[in-house]
């Protein structure tokens, strides 16, 4: 290129200018990088706030339903709608279970091109399954059921706490959350080989929900478990829970992939989840659990519980004998939540201290509910008191508390042990406080870690449960390692995944990766931009869904009613309504495009700028619509609960009842006419039943700025449409 000669000429001629220009470019570049890094960090914060709020909402909903169960009469409509999710499995003996899930009469048609399984399973078949799923095949329901049955039989033999050793110089590979992201599992197997006698693996929970291939991941993990029972270990995560699955997409995935037998598959999975071991200890020195610990965690207690009684970690088991009605599960949570506003700090992955008070995202204490319910159901209670039967007078909560106080203490304890294990998060400060952000488990500090490790003679805790940008993160003086194996979790390019290899020296060796060929094509700038646009869209949807409350808040600050507020007022009003703890002023440039000389904001105009389109529903009351947008996934969850035969349809009557339930939950008035208006919009064929999918689609918020209007935002609570990421042909 002949650069050398000409360059030196250039320098001699214009060296001063050249250097000046170089420095200018360099300065700007450095600023560009710094700003990008900061935006990445608060984009992360946005996703995380919304994710955790969703979990909190889910738990609140479940608490509410549980409370209803305990306080409504057996005959009431509301209770009947939802009682089945709390019902003990009627079929309790093993032989009956096997009969119930008999796969033998399910025929596999000749046209079926997926894998055929024969039992006992062989290595070739397990490997064959991985291949088949890589090639987008689906396993036939007959084989799924058969596989699940065998898995269940195997899991029942396992203790609550797996104890393994890295003898014979074997390294064990430990993986964190996978959340239905098959590409990541395939990538791990590619980099690290599949499980085998020389290659033991431990999977630390949250195999399902959010990603689109949860069932395939389960099938693969269970197959290897069957083939290598001494080399493959599974821990239960908080998402191995049918209640959580209702909201976060796994239930929907199974029902849509297995239309005929999905319900049975789900039922069997409920059982299987409850039989998953709770923890694993390696070489008596390293504890591996999904969530974390609390100051009361005791491995000896955990080793003795009947873990299969806990179908869902969110509710303590009901005792079988009829005189006991079950204690409201929120009783001890409520105690802590009911104390005066606790202001405490947690340690989110951004190390961003947030002030959390009892008035969280949805401030509805159950004290409020009980007032409301007592007023509405006085009559019911009167009638009910006269009825004999299993849920007779003992159903009065205070009485039942006392009568079973002795028995229930240990079962409450046990339940808390499991809840803490599956839901807790570490924090930077000493101590142990309830995890109000997620709604379950607690936050535990370095002192609790120290004490726990000493008491149990351990040296390291490996856990998952939280997404980390690098796929892993140490804390508590490197005594706690968080491991997360679902890369691109929030969006393409958001984070790496990681797995850990542990040899006899018990020194963790970490391997990182990031799935998807799409990543390589996007330039760094583009992939960062994507995450930001995604987070931005989610935020705009949330803001739009709170329009009425926001306008109300703005008006209060706009005393002269000119339709404008200052930037500072805008930020404080938005935070007071949204309660996400986000830096609204800093994000202003991305959320408010209109500029004015004095940097005040025209708030009516701002809502137009948000460019979010609502449903075509002028005849429906605005605030009802907003309720719909805001509580979309709660509503959908309730629909799915109500839809007992998983048909995807509910009757008009159930539809009305659902809305009544929701109106009590949200403490808002919804009139009969309003509900009818909603139904009419959807029930176009007037046959008296509502198609759940259609309904949810009709009342979805769409982003006018985005060309991709299909596929729902992950953070409105349902599984993301990851078909944009095609299977990586390069794996």
């Amino acid at each position, binding site marked *: *290129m002949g*650069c050398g000669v*000409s*360059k030196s000429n*250039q*320098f*001699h001629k*214009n*060296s*001063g*200018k*050249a*250097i*000046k*220009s*170089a*420095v*200018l*470019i*360099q*300065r*700007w*570049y*450095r*600023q*560009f*990088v*710094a*700003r*990008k*890094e*900061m935006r990445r*960090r*608060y984009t992360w*914060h946005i996703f995380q706030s919304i994710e955790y709020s969703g979990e909190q909402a889910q738990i609140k909903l479940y608490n509410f339903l549980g409370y209803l169960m305990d306080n409504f009469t057996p005959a009431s409509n509301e209770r009947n709608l939802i009682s089945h999710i709390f019902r003990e499995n009627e079929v309790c003996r093993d032989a009956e279970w096997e009969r119930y899930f008999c796969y033998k009469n399910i025929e596999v048609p000749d046209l079926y091109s997926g894998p055929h399984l024969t039992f006992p399973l062989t290595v070739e078949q397990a490997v064959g399954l991985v291949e088949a799923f890589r090639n987008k095949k689906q396993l036939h329901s007959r084989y799924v059921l058969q596989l699940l049955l065998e898995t269940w039989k195997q899991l029942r033999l396992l203790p609550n706490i797996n104890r393994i050793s890295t003898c014979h110089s074997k390294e064990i590979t430990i993986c964190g959350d996978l959340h239905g992201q098959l590409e990541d599992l395939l990538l791990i197997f590619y980099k690290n080989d599949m499980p085998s006698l020389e290659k033991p693996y431990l999977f630390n929970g949250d195999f399902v929900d959010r990603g689109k291939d949860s069932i395939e991941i389960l099938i693969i993990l269970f197959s290897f478990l069957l083939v290598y029972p001494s080399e493959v270990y599974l821990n239960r995560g908080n998402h191995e829970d049918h209640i959580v699955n209702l909201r976060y997409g796994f239930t929907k995935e199974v029902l849509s992939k297995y239309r005929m037998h999905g319900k049975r598959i789900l039922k069997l999975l409920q059982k299987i989840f409850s039989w998953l071991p709770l923890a694993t200890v390696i070489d008596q020195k390293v504890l591996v659990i999904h969530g974390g610990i609390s100051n009361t965690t005791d491995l000896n207690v955990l080793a003795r519980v009947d873990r299969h009684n806990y179908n869902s970690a969110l509710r303590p088991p009901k005792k079988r004998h009829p005189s006991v009605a079950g204690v409201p599960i929120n009783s001890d949570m409520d105690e802590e939540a009911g104390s005066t506003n606790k202001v405490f*700090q947690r*340690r989110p992955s*951004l*190390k*961003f*201290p947030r002030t959390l008070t009892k008035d969280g995202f949805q401030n509805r204490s159950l004290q409020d509910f009980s007032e409301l319910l007592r007023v509405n159901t006085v009559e019911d209670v009167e009638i009910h008191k006269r009825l004999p039967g299993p849920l007779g007078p003992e159903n009065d909560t205070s009485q039942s508390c006392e009568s079973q106080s002795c028995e229930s203490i240990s079962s409450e304890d046990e339940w808390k042990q499991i809840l803490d294990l599956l839901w807790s998060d570490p924090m*930077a*400060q000493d101590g142990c406080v309830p995890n109000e952000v997620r709604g379950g488990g607690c936050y535990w500090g370095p002192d609790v870690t120290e004490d726990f490790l000493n008491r149990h003679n351990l040296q390291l805790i490996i856990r998952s449960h939280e997404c980390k940008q690098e796929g892993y993160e140490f*804390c*508590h*003086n490197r005594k706690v390692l968080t491991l997360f194996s679902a890369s691109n979790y929030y969006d393409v390019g958001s984070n790496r995944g990681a797995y850990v290899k542990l040899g006899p020296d018990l020194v963790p060796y970490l391997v990182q990766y990031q799935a998807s060929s799409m990543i390589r094509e996007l*330039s*760094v*700038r583009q992939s960062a931009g994507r995450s930001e646009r995604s987070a931005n869209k989610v935020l705009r949807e949330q803001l739009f869904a709170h329009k009425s409350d926001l306008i109300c808040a703005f008006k209060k600050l706009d005393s002269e009613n000119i339709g404008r507020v200052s*930037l*500072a007022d805008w*930020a404080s009003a938005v935070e007071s309504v949204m309660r996400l703890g986000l*830096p609204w*002023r*800093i994000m202003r440039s991305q959320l408010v495009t209109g500029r004015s000389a004095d940097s005040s904001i025209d708030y009516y105009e701002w809502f137009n700028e948000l460019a979010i389109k609502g449903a075509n529903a002028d005849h429906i009351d605005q605030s009802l619509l907003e309720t719909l947008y805001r509580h979309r996934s709660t509503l959908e969850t309730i629909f799915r609960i109500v839809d007992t035969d998983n048909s995807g349809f509910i009757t008009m009557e159930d539809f009305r009842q659902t809305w009544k339930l929701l109106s009590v939950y949200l403490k808002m008035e919804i009139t009969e006419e309003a509900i009818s208006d909603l139904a009419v919009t959807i029930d176009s064929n007037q046959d008296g039943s509502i198609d759940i999918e259609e309904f949810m689609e009709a009342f979805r918020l769409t982003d006018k700025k985005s060309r991709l209007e299909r596929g729902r935002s992950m953070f409105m609570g349902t599984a993301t449409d990851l078909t944009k990421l095609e299977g990586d042909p390069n794996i």
Partner: protein
Amino acid sequence: MAPKKKEEPKPAAAPAAPKPPEPERPKTPVFDPATVTLEFTPEQIEDFKYSFQLFDTTATNEMKITYAQCGDLIRALGQNPTNTEIMNVLGKPKVEDMHTKMLDFDQFLPMHQHICKAKDCGTYEDFVEGLRVFDKEGNGTVMGAELRHVLATLGEKMREDEVDQLMQNQEDANGCINYEAFVKYIMAS
């Protein structure tokens, strides 16, 4: 081998071109935070605090950042100083101290204020003028390779991976960069 001629003593310090002056050499003496009056509004300070926390990677949320992060933070907040200016407000620390010495938020504020006051960003025109220097053919483009060389060897040198990141997707099929577009790209963060 011919014997070396006895060389005449070369004239001291007289290269063919005058030594290029370092641009923006700070004329200020050692930076004294006590002399800086803070003019930020309370809201601004709140925003800075949030950003400060984003950069705080201490295990216990002590609200401290390393010296090395100070520059990043100031830039993230919208300023555009040179590395020299940053080292100046940090009190010209040793290189080995950059990742070990910490500062807290109160120490950070006067540094940031000082940088905010000394505005000398360089305009779009300055930028384009600077790049025109390398436009040999006067056609609005510079050779990507040449620009890379410049950024890595002159001024406040960039590392190779930084140059790669900056130039990613900027060069056309002939390895040329339209510099007006390039400048717009850089300034539009």
